[in-house]
């Protein structure tokens, strides 16, 4: 038994309006640089749809995640160690830029500098952000927004092709007969990360303190095996630096007790952040259970109940500060995953034990209720639809429970019951006991679940302890010792200006510091003269 803390996220999909604020703010923070034009640490997909990169869920093709071999041992789908090294010269399972999309920009100068009196309106042309050549826009990170092009492509959504063929055949993509929802995705910061396991250099790691999975930019050598191994395709190659990059879970903010950028800015306020305690020694066994449909229960069992005195004792022994134990007890993530059991992992069958979980959306079912001419405010009608109208439920099951429709249906029942229960409570004050019974919850539980899902404020949605309080005194002293950035001291976590300039190949030119092209003997960003050997900074 080795207790560890993990910062985890839950997203309540019913509330996602697909506004992409999360994607944009994340991009502005982390990937608005050359080399990461095509990279979205947070992306929002419309489901059904083939996703970003295209068909990333098709593991027969992309070889992401883990699988059990003939002897029941857990192996990476992309092969063992020797096989991986044998493919280091050319990785056959690496998505190329066309599987993502060609990032484009527009020549807006055409509009600005158009002479007066033109008879035709000037038109700005899209140009490739990589080559500068004119291109036609044929795909993007969110090309399928609101089911765009679904009638042509959504049928090849790997979740639909995985459904039983009669069910798949009944999925319609005509405008009024279909269902849809948005799926925001970030790195899952898995307990059994395939990316880390496939990294030949050992540059990728899972942090002991909070479980955040990171790429050490100084140790990554560009072998690009992590990209293939991640079944969620959430590691990307930066083509300018030649190194892998991924969602950082905004660790500088998490360390300071703040929510990630994507959570902070989420318009639907549908994201929850909190701690989960888990037993590291139980991870491998949980990821190796024979039946895919047992993975959900197995993963839940890896988590340790923060209210259990035994867990508290273990945590204290492991040196976790009291603040962390209290945070784990107040964790909204723990409540959604284990108390109410309405949050589900995305694609548990990849066996990475993902740590961003989802409350599945009830809206596709409600749409189906309406389409069937039933009353979507009537609990019985909704229950009936969940049970009998298999289409949306089976689809959700492919996403969240390795195809176990009953497990998803159970969660949807709870959500439907909560909806009707609260409706009755609010309209005429009646307490619908029979609904509670139907889903095995007490009225009080339903109400607190409702509170958490519908009206929880900032402090309830994000319960993030600051990084170890025992470091606080040292930090204070550090901050007091300098008038500049308090982290910029010798041995401090921040980098001095000179170190930054050197590490990231900055050039000083005309009073400005910027990364980019420079002559062979140009002065470097740190002011020293030196031979320019930077293999990345030659382009502007």
């Amino acid at each position: 038994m080795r207790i560890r803390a993990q910062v985890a996220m839950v997203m309540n999909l019913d509330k996602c309006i697909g506004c992409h604020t999360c994607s944009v703010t994340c991009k502005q923070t982390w990937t608005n640089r050359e080399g990461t034009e095509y990279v979205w640490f947070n992306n929002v997909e419309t489901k059904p749809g083939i996703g970003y990169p295209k068909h990333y869920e098709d593991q027969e093709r992309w070889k992401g995640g883990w699988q059990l071999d003939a002897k029941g041992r857990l192996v990476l789908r992309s092969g063992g160690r020797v096989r991986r090294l044998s493919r280091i010269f050319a990785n056959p399972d690496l998505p190329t830029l066309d599987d993502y999309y060609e990032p484009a920009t527009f020549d807006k100068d055409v509009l600005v500098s158009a002479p007066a009196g033109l008879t035709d309106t000037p038109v700005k042309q899209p140009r490739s952000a990589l080559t500068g050549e004119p291109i036609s826009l044929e795909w993007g990170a969110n090309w399928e927004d609101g089911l765009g092009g679904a009638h042509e492509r959504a049928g090849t959504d790997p979740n639909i092709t995985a459904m039983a063929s009669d069910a798949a055949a009944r999925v319609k993509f005509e405008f009024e007969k279909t269902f849809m929802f948005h799926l925001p995705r970030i790195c899952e910061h898995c307990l059994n990360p395939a990316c880390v396991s496939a990294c030949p250099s050992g540059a990728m790691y899972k942090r002991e303190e909070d479980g955040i999975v990171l790429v050490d930019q100084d140790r990554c050598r560009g072998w690009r095996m992590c990209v293939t191994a991640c079944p969620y395709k959430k590691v990307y190659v930066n083509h300018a630096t030649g190194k892998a990059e991924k969602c950082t879970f905004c660790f500088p903010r998490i360390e300071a007790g703040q929510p990630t950028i994507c959570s902070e800015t989420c318009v639907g306020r549908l994201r929850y952040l909190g701690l989960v305690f888990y037993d590291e020694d139980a991870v491998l066994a949980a990821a190796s259970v024979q039946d895919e449909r047992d993975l959900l229960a197995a993963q839940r069992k890896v988590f340790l109940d923060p209210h259990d005195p035994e867990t508290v004792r273990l945590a204290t022994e492991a040196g976790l500060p009291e603040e962390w134990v209290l945070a784990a007890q107040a964790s909204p993530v723990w409540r959604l995953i284990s108390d109410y059991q309405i949050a589900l992992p995305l694609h548990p069958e990849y066996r990475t034990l993902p740590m961003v979980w989802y409350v599945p959306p009830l809206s596709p079912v409600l749409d189906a209720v309406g389409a069937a001419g039933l009353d979507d405010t009537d609990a019985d009608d909704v229950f009936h639809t969940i049970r009998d109208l298999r289409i949306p439920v089976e689809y959700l099951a492919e996403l969240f429970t390795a195809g176990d429709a009953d497990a998803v249906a159970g969660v949807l029942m709870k959500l439907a019951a909560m909806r009707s229960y609260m409706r009755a409570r609010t309209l005429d004050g009646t307490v619908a006991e029979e609904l509670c019974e139907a889903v095995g919850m007490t009225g009080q539980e339903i109400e607190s679940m409702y509170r958490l899902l519908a009206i929880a404020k900032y402090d309830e949605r994000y319960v993030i302890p600051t990084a170890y309080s025992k470091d606080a005194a040292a930090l204070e002293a550090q901050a007091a010792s300098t008038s500049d950035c308090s982290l910029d001291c010798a041995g401090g976590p921040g980098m001095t200006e000179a170190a930054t300039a050197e590490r990231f190949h900055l050039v000083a030119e005309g009073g400005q510091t910027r990364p980019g092209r420079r002559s062979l003997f140009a002065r470097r960003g740190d002011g020293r003269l030196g031979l320019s050997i930077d293999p990345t900074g030659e382009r502007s």
Partner: protein
Amino acid sequence: MNTLIWIVVPYACLAVFVVGHVWRWRHDQFGWTTHTSQLLESRILRLGSPLFHLGAFGVIIGHAMGLLVPASLTEKIGVSEHVYHATAVWGGTVTGIMLVAGLALLIARRFVNGRVRRVTTTMDKVLYVALASMVILGMTATLGTNLLGEGYDYRETIAVWFRGMFWFSPQTDLMAGAPLVYQLHALGGFLFLALWPFTRLVHVWSAPLAYLWRPYVVYRARRGAPAAVAPAPATVRDRGMHDIRH
């Protein structure tokens, strides 16, 4: 003149090779990468890159055999001159052709694909030119002189001179008498070594063999102190107001 070309230049190049690597390792971990461009172009690379790398392995092994193993040793273990010669020439030709084909594909890829062309740096271009000239000279020596021509026994001259480098007693007259392509290839080889630490070739030293033994999941403790807690906007405002008043 002989001293300059066959003693000073080689040692200078070796010095640059060593010092350059130390310097680069200490100052440029962030730039130390294969600099993969497979994301941008995969089709040609999937053929060219393995051909090039495997060819290069063969060629490196061949050079090590030819230059480091003295002829007397191979004879002692019972490898006849003829067998050695045949292995060397044919092995060299096959791996050499793989190398040439791979390199040609990799270079062609930089021309035909706009994306890859755009990310090709000056250093890359220098490296490709250097590699291509070395390979052309080497192949001329192997094919032109040894396979088709009358042959030249470099093991009695070049190899002896080369091994002399390690004992600090290189015999320059051995090199002075070698055919021109051998001379150029040897000299170019040293210049190439001097270029090495400043190119993406440094990734060779990071060949991830340790991966074969290490546990799959790597855990690492956070380094240094965590980020400080940023004061809430209200705190900043109140502090400011406080400062104004006093």
